[in-house]
């Protein structure tokens, strides 16, 4: 990437500017797209829906979309959480969004932490054992799993472990109306989380593994590795303190880019397991053509992704001492 070759300070400024521009572009698209529609948008959009609107509700929707208030007042509404009312779910859009968000964050966060950690360790160890049977079979396994999309693993895991073996619940994030102490609740949430989490880890792990292994392969031949060996350092110290630390950099920089695409899998997996996060909310909103909810989920999950990518850019500065000390 070209931004890597410039001065670190301008790299940071450039990244921030890029993400602000991307955020503004997303907000503007979400503001402008419905306005490009010809004719009576509200009637057209809700004609295929299973929601019947009263005249009053139609008027309120029409005023939401056809008001001539400019981009500025749209921004104000966004920041005051005034995102309209969902006639399909009979609740304010912001309540729906904020209710679903924690579950998605839990699922995606856990899946990414586990698959990044496990993928990195296995990648480093595989590269270290380059040319052995272990490495080859790990790579073969990773390539096969990298080729199976989340839809397929998700459905297979659901059919086998939930519908046939009945080990895990098929839907939801926790047992409804269950009142137990905190520990039972945590176990219950984990029990519901297991299947979607496994699906996502199976989807993310191979990519992390291959990336870590490849970047480790490049690091292993660096001159400082010879120095470390010549100094007689213990192998694990060479592997992790000297090699893996540098192999981590590409894994972190690529994470942001991959996140923008990983979201797709998460949406699908939530729907398969009926996990009550943003993906399921979005699916239900699409089914009932509930545009305010679709818009809110699309816009705010994109903004969250952008924030995470920018955060990774900051993390990159911390773990790469070359950037920190280049003042």
């Amino acid at each position, binding site marked *: 990437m070209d931004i890597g070759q410039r001065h670190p300070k301008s790299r940071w400024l450039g990244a921030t500017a890029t993400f602000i521009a991307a955020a503004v572009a997303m907000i503007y698209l979400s503001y402008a797209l419905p306005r490009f529609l010809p004719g009576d948008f509200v009637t057209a959009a809700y004609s295929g829906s299973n929601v019947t609107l009263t005249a009053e509700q139609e008027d309120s929707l029409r005023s939401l979309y056809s008001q001539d208030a400019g981009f500025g007042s749209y921004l104000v509404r966004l920041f005051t959480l005034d995102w309209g009312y969902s006639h399909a779910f009979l609740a304010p859009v912001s309540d729906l969004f904020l209710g679903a968000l924690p579950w998605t964050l839990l699922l995606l966060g856990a899946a990414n932490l586990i698959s990044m950690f496990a993928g990195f360790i296995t990648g480093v160890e595989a590269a270290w054992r380059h040319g052995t049977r272990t490495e080859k079979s790990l790579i073969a396994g990773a390539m096969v799993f990298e080729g199976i999309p989340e839809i397929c693993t998700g459905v297979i895991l659901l059919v086998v472990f939930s519908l046939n073996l009945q080990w895990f619940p098929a839907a939801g994030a926790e047992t409804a109306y269950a009142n137990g102490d905190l520990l039972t609740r945590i176990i219950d949430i984990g029990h519901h989380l297991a299947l979607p989490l496994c699906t996502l880890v199976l989807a993310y792990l191979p990519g992390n593994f291959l990336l870590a292994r490849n970047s480790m392969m490049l690091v292993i031949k660096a001159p400082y590795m010879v120095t470390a060996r010549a100094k007689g350092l213990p192998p694990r110290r060479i592997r992790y303190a000297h090699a893996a630390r540098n192999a981590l950099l590409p894994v972190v920089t690529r994470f942001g880019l991959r996140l923008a695409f990983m979201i797709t899998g998460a949406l699908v997996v939530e729907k398969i397991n009926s996990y009550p996060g943003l993906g399921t909310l979005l699916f239900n909103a699409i089914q009932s053509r509930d545009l305010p909810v679709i818009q809110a989920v699309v816009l705010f999950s*994109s903004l969250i992704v952008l924030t995470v990518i920018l955060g990774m850019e900051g993390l990159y500065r911390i773990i790469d001492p070359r950037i920190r000390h280049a003042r």
Partner: protein
Amino acid sequence: MHGKTVKDLKHNPWFLTGLSLTGFFFVLAMVGPWVAPFSPWDISFNPISPPDGKHLLGVNDGGQDILSELLYALRNTITFGLLSGCTALVSGVLTGVLSGWFGGLLDAVLMRIADILLAIPAIMILILTAAVFRPSPAFLALILASITWPTISKAIRAQTLTLKNSLHVKAAFQMGAGSWYIIRHHLLPEMFPLYLIGFAAKIRMAMFMEASLAFLGLFDPSRKSLGMMISYALNYYYLDIWWNWLMPPILCLSLVIMAITFLAISLEDVLDPRLREAVMEKTP
């Protein structure tokens, strides 16, 4: 490509598996409408009946032949992938070469746009467009391509910058070759391996997106798609349909995406110079 690279590829089991699987599914998708036993929109059969001699994979809930549905769905998924992949490849290569060769303001503007697009989750733009306008699949494939070209563009641009300083390009320039001549005769042909890597990666992503969008119900319900078949079949999980209705689209989708993944990864292993050097030096 050099003869050695071709030989490396010929002996790479991943590449060969990927290539033969891709070829198989491509042919199947192209001849699909002619070998399908029934029209996939014919709803005159007995709904949810198990496979028999007439319907090799049985009949779905709408009274449609599942095998015919599968063949049309495969065709739609692969066409979507090819269309989006080709468009992303062409725009990525053009923008990459132009901004690498000419530099300056053009480079600055194009790469800034590329950075912005890289950060935006493509699926969100697709969902928003699909939900508001309900456009044709081809239009969505083009929208997807318009968001995914930057990765190809960046790789091509970096390689163009390297080639720009290589001796033969400098020599051609000294002998009075113009920019277009150098781009057409030196830069574009020499970067061929990069096109293959980028193309495979984009097709893979586009097919994955198509399946996900169809699964989420964003396409016209009468358009056959692997994702939509999985989504409908999942509604009847409690019946004994998983092996004749649920499994076939899952297997097809997995195998197609797996085949392209094998191609993408093995091409990158063999053709990416940095990685190849590292591997070669380490191997005794």
